């Protein structure tokens, strides 16, 4: 027995150098469900092609949990090499100081093709002109509509509403004809408010949305904001808009749409694959259109949502090189196409879009077309670049609080003014801590 143990140790010791040669790259992400498997498969393929590198992906729960876990791991000196962070966490990630700008790791010989990223996406993740992280899963909000119910109500099924007033008109018709009990639904989430500010060309924060310099003032009581709230409240009062009553209830909104309670739904493009399946199962025809814009405003397009991949500080050059190689491979054209088909998140590289066009993918899957057209039509202005705010999660709650107060009958102007003051105070406190 003793001899056996000694032999075992000997084997282990001999085997160690062989194992140690592999550069280990840990990758913490926040994609649940089927996406865990997809990411695992992609990483396995990379590992097979790169015998000297071993990437281990790990699902860490929500975006917030992933970020929290990473910060805590960093404090203990065990930070993962790659962390998946949601778009509104970008400023927070910069301020935390535990990540390094991705673009700095690129060397002249690398096949990085940073110009290949879709403009709207590059616009968001370039901070001060530099990619701090690699864009990965991107989405924006689109209008989904039930063509079958549209026909029933005598609406043109090929022509979804494009403006706030058109949404009201269509909803009234849907309701009056008895086609659906409600016109439209979307999750009560600040994200949509941000989008409706963006497509009106309005800023959410000063200093050009916090992009020219750190934002010091949040703009919640501006004219475009009041337009959004007035429209929303009218729709709620007239029982044209419906929601589950809970904030940020994505599933609740999806269910209202799928069950035919509401004939239109505004939600993320990342649900397109899911919605197509649901429409088939529930026997209705699905249509998609652009996110409606306030009347009288030019449509500047949407702000890119989703998340990007960040590299943490404190690893060896060798590990950083391996990490960079993996990230470039993970987001190359072929993998972007694969990721898009597997999830519905749109590919973030122009070459991947061209690839999909060559395959006639959009003709075969028309529901995706609106999402792409909308992304491509987005104008690269500050409003669609999205605001950079370190306390974004808190801002989102301040806005949803205000929206619910307004829907429950509070004065729009006064409520937004209060919310604005609350947000400014929170921002001031946050900024104080990072100066």
């Amino acid at each position, binding site marked *: 027995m003793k001899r056996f143990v000694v032999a075992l140790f000997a084997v282990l010791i001999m085997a160690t150098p062989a194992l140690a040669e592999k550069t280990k790259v840990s990758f913490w992400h926040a994609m649940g469900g089927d996406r865990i498997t997809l990411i695992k498969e992609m990483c396995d393929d990379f590992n097979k092609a790169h015998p000297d590198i071993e990437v281990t992906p790990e699902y860490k729960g929500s975006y*917030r949990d992933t970020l*929290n876990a990473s*910060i*805590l791991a*960093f*404090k203990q000196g065990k930070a993962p090499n790659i962390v998946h962070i949601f778009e509104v966490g970008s400023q*927070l990630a910069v*301020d*935390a*100081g*535990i990540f390094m700008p991705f673009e700095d790791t690129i060397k002249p010989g690398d096949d990085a093709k940073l110009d290949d990223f879709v403009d709207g996406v590059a616009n968001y993740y370039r901070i001060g002109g530099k990619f701090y992280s690699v864009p990965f899963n991107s989405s924006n909000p689109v209008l989904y509509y039930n063509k079958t119910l549209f026909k029933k109500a005598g609406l043109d099924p090929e022509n979804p509403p494009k403006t706030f007033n058109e949404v009201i008109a269509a909803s009234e018709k849907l309701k009056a004809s008895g086609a659906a*009990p409600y016109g439209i639904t979307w999750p009560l989430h600040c994200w949509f408010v941000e989008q409706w500010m963006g497509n009106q060309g309005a800023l959410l924060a000063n200093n050009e949305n916090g992009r020219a310099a750190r934002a010091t003032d949040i703009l919640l009581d501006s004219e475009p904001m009041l337009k959004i709230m007035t429209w929303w409240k009218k729709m709620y009062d007239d029982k044209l808009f*419906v*929601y*589950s*009553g*809970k*904030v*940020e209830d994505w599933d*609740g909104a999806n*269910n*209202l749409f799928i*069950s035919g*309670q509401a004939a239109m739904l505004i939600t993320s493009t990342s649900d397109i694959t899911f919605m197509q399946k649901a429409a088939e199962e529930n026997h209705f025809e699905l249509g998609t259109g652009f996110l409606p814009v306030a009347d009288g405003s030019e449509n500047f397009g949407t702000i890119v949502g989703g998340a990007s991949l960040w590299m943490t500080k404190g690893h060896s050059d060798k590990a950083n090189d391996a990490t960079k190689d993996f990230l470039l491979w993970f987001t190359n054209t072929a993998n972007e196409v694969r990721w898009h088909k597997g999830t519905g998140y749109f590919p973030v590289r122009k070459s991947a879009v061209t690839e999909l066009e060559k395959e006639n993918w959009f003709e075969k899957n028309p529901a995706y077309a609106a999402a792409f057209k909308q992304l491509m039509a987005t104008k690269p202005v500050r409003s669609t670049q999205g605001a950079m705010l370190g*306390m974004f*999660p*808190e801002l989102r*709650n301040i806005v*949803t*609080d*205000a929206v*619910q*107060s307004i*829907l*429950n009958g509070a004065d729009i102007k006064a409520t937004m003014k209060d919310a604005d003051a*609350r947000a400014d105070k929170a921002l001031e*406190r*946050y900024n*104080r*801590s*990072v100066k």
Partner: protein
Amino acid sequence: MQPVFKRHGTAFLLLLPTLVILIFFLYLPTIQTFIMSLYQVGFLGLSKMFVGVENYQIIFTEPEYRDIMVNTLVFVLGSVSLSMALGLAFAVLANEKVTGARYYRLLLIWPYALPPAVAGVIFLFLFSAQVGIINYFLGLIFGITPDWLADPELAMTVVILSTVWKNVGYNVVFYLAALQNLPGDVLEAATIDGATGWQRFWRITFPLLSPMTFFLLIMNTIAAFFDVFAFIDLITKGGPSNGTTVFIYAIYRDGFEYFKSGLAAAQSVFLFLLVVVLTVLKFRLQKKVHYAN
């Protein structure tokens, strides 16, 4: 009384594991929380700035936190009184000698065995404004379909009902045990003297149950302060407009969603002191509670 261990060393050695656990998992974190509450902490501790009592100032002066205090009070009073009253009523009924009493008892205790997450989802579905069964029947019978979760008062009602439903079993178990240990001769004597059932309950049973009531009051109150996270998070997420945000939820949100660990620590300290006061109060009042022998 003779000491069990002659040497203090042996006793200390046996206590050591417990002490180690207490120090590392209870005392040290508590002290750290006190210290942290005086700082503005960023990114879960990556940055730190001394701010004195500012965090406490925020809690006691800002309208948002005043609402949270009121919500906590409403929630604790509502859920504790309701679940204890119902628990007692059910226990008295389940204590009756009827056929199948054992099954009734089992069924009453059942909800307590459910994980809070499951109970939360059940109530979320029940009270869904558009597709919930409650509104389906309300619509059928009365023609009304209230927006349960969109209205702050109704949302609070739903959260209270769900915790009561979940916790009532706990109270039933303890009350049942207490009822079965009541001295039968006293009740018998009262019956012979011509006391009605109602009189017997309020004059004899209820006072005799007071030690149990007292114990349950403390347990329920502490549970109401600390164990509601899952219900709030699943059913309302603290909404609408913070209408169901109670302290424990605000602590989580400030600490882990908004990266305001200092503020969260200050709230923890406040909650801690509140529970200390309650416990002291318990020991003071306990002297007035009637214990048999």
